């Protein structure tokens, strides 16, 4: 279980990116996070990942307060192209974290190739990241996270550079992975349909500074299906609601508090 | 190092092989004559020669024991080292003393400088400042009623003196053989001061030196070396041809050049009175603070 308690972060330049965020995520849950640009979604994920030490509040993992980077974590960064190593081939990029898993070289390669195949990059293994298109690089970084088989997976707009078809495939892949392995997933997205389609919950953040504006439970039948799920009235309702919330989320925390009363 | 012969041999020498660091200068000719004429062999000594470029460079090697003797060691440098305590000097033999015209002050043929007096306020190139050259030249200038403090010494290595003079970077150069002949030939340069003239004629300038430690540990070897050296000096002094024969080999001087250059004197005795002249010059020139005790410095073979 992941508990985020009173999380507040202020950057060195004095800008408070998120304020007083509370959130509890059950093991195996997939939580979609949506919110306007600059509202603090990435900051929140970086705090959870232990990459920035929050100014206040804490992250509690399975009952123990986290200090630093949690075990068994994988992250798909928003700035995926910079998180790939240009001196390694695509396959080696994916295989590198697996060293932490104590796998043999052959096992690592195999796992890497499998993950690449699952994101549709079976042929790109021996290329270098800078020989790939933007969307392909993004998929490499998704493959890297999936191959690692984390227990907590943070994804920051992982499908932003992908075409509709590939995007749907990877949404389904994400759902499958969560179903198989009991992985806890936090997924930041700007696509409201997507947030509802893949999420067990949708958390809507408001801006200035970032705060939780709404936390909706998605009650859609499993397994989800790209066509039939999206036609369900509940899906349509939820998506409209999230859309409304996001559009109104540009207002500040104070305004939201007033609105909530 | 030359430790291979350190076990005393049949002839009672503490050390049979002696390593000598030698400069490529005419000064050290006697060493090579001695080797050629087997004078060292006659004393039961084997001499190993290590070529060096400057006598100061061999100083650490001498202290460390990598070489036993430095041939043609510049007295000014070594007396100073002795005074500062970096080395306890022991002189086994003299190497060279000044002779007239072996070291001269040259100017360009069209230079307005005609006499020593004209050098006042001028720039004179010397190889190393505050060393034997300025020391002796100052003495000569003083004897000629020229104020030495009015000349400016500029450091220029011997090989570059010709070019510096030709480019008018200096007004005069103080230069030794074989560069002396070379510049005279190439530029038609004119002598204004005889650098070996009075009052410095006969002043000893270099010797065969070791440390007092070496000399006291190896008295017999040192004595044997000294005997052979004195004979070699004698040979060098008496017959110019012998010097001309060896010089092209080790000093890279062409034979025809060797036959025309002015030779230094090769003193064939070790003599505190003569050495006193250079010491006195150094003290009066401010290069030494006190007069060293030459009796401990000059190696005396025990009878």
């Amino acid at each position, binding site marked *: 279980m992941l508990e985020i308690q009173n999380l507040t972060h202020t950057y060195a330049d004095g800008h408070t990116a998120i304020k007083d965020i509370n959130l509890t995520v059950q093991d195996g849950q997939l939580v979609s996070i949506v919110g306007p640009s600059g509202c603090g979604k990435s900051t929140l994920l970086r705090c959870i*990942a*232990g*990459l920035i030490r929050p100014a206040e509040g804490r992250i509690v993992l399975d009952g123990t307060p986290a200090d630093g*980077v949690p*075990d*068994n*974590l*994988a*992250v798909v*960064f928003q*700035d995926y*192209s*910079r*998180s790939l*190593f*240009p*001196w390694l081939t695509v396959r080696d990029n994916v295989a*590198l*974290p697996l060293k*932490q898993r104590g796998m043999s070289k052959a096992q690592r390669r195999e796992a890497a190739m499998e993950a690449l195949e699952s994101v549709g990059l079976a042929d790109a293994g021996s290329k*270098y*990241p*800078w*020989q*790939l*298109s*933007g969307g392909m*690089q993004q998929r490499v970084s998704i493959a890297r996270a999936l191959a*690692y088989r984390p227990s907590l997976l943070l994804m920051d707009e992982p499908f932003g550079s992908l075409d509709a078809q590939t995007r749907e495939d990877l949404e389904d892949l994400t759902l499958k992975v969560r179903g198989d392995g009991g992985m806890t997933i936090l997924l930041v997205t700007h696509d409201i349909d997507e947030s509802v389609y893949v999420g067990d919950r949708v958390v809507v953040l408001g801006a200035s500074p970032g705060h939780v504006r709404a936390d909706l439970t998605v009650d859609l039948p499993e397994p989800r299906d790209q066509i039939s799920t999206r036609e369900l009235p509940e899906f349509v309702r939820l998506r409209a609601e999230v859309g409304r919330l996001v559009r109104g989320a540009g207002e500040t925390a104070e305004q939201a508090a007033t609105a909530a009363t | 190092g030359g430790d291979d012969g350190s076990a005393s041999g049949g002839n009672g020498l503490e050390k049979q092989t002696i390593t000598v*660091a030698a400069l*490529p200068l005419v000064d050290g000719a006697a060493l090579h004559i001695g080797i050629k004429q087997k004078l060292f062999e006659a004393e039961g000594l084997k001499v190993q020669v*290590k*070529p*060096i*470029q*400057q006598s*100061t*460079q*061999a*100083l*650490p*090697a001498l*202290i*460390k024991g*990598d070489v036993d003797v430095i041939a043609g060691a510049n007295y000014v440098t070594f007396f100073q080292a002795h005074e500062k305590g970096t080395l306890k000097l022991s002189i086994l033999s003299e190497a060279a003393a000044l002779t007239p015209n072996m070291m001269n002050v040259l100017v360009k043929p069209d230079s307005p400088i005609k006499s020593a007096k004209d050098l006042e306020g001028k720039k004179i190139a010397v190889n190393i400042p505050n060393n034997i050259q300025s020391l002796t030249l100052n003495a000569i200038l003083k004897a000629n009623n020229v104020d030495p403090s009015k000349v400016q010494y500029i450091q220029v*290595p*011997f*090989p*570059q003196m*010709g*070019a510096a003079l*030709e*480019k008018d970077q200096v007004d005069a150069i103080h230069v030794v053989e*074989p*560069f002396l002949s*070379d510049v005279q030939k*190439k530029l038609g340069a004119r002598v204004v001061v005889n650098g070996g003239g009075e009052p410095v004629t006969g002043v000893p300038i270099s010797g065969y030196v070791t440390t007092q430690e070496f000399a006291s540990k190896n008295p017999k070897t040192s004595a044997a070396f000294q005997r052979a050296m004195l004979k070699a000096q004698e040979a060098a002094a008496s017959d110019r041809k012998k010097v001309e024969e060896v010089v092209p080999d080790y000093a*890279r*001087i062409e034979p025809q*050049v060797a036959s025309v250059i002015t030779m230094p004197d090769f003193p064939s005795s070790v003599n505190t009175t003569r050495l006193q002249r250079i010491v006195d010059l150094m003290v009066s020139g401010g290069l030494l603070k006190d007069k060293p005790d030459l009796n401990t410095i000059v190696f005396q073979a025990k009878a």
Partner: protein
Amino acid sequence: MAALFAASELLGRAEIVDRSYLPPASSVVTRAIELAGDTLFLQYLADTMTAWAVGLGLAIAVAVPLGLLLGSVPAVNAATRAIVEFLRPIPSVALIPLAGLLLGSGTEMKVALIVYASTWPILFNTMYGLAEVDPAGKDTLRVFGFGRLEILLRVSLPSAAPFIATGIRLAAAIALILAVGTEIISGFGEGLGIFIAQAYSVPDGARDVLAGTVWAGTLGLVIDAALGGAQRRMFHWHHARQGGTT
């Protein structure tokens, strides 16, 4: 290159000074080529190159790990800065007599001085290279649970590597200068520098001095070409990325 040759040929022929003081390039180069057939000279070259190779190798072995340490642990950097900055401007070659006293006058001294002088460019380029590493890469491995040392070796080192290589190229030339320079100044033993020093002390030696210099320059050129080639091969990702597009 040809322009340099022509310029120096002209300079030599212009006779600003007597030709033997500065011989024209053609005669210097002829002499340099002649030397290639001289076995003693080749032996000297081999001696110099041995000292160069050992010295540079040791400098790399010392400077890269030290640079990684100083560049990644600011506390150590601050603590040692006074020593480092105090030592750097000390002209090692000018202290040859003293170095000779401690280390003898043979290859050890040459190597020690080479290591001393050529450590700095590698050390500094390593440190500055580390400072420039994109934090995104480091964060990535941190997230996957890698420790500081592993991040240093797997991210920081490879991304700083091209700049470290430039440091090594700088050091290679410095090491060569030191090898030859030490020989010239110590005037003792064997090597290219000794050849030059010997020529230096006789009249008409300029031609040999410059022929030796041409050899030193040529060695530098060859070494740099080899290092440049190795650099291009090892860091092809760097160059392809700079030239290519994504």
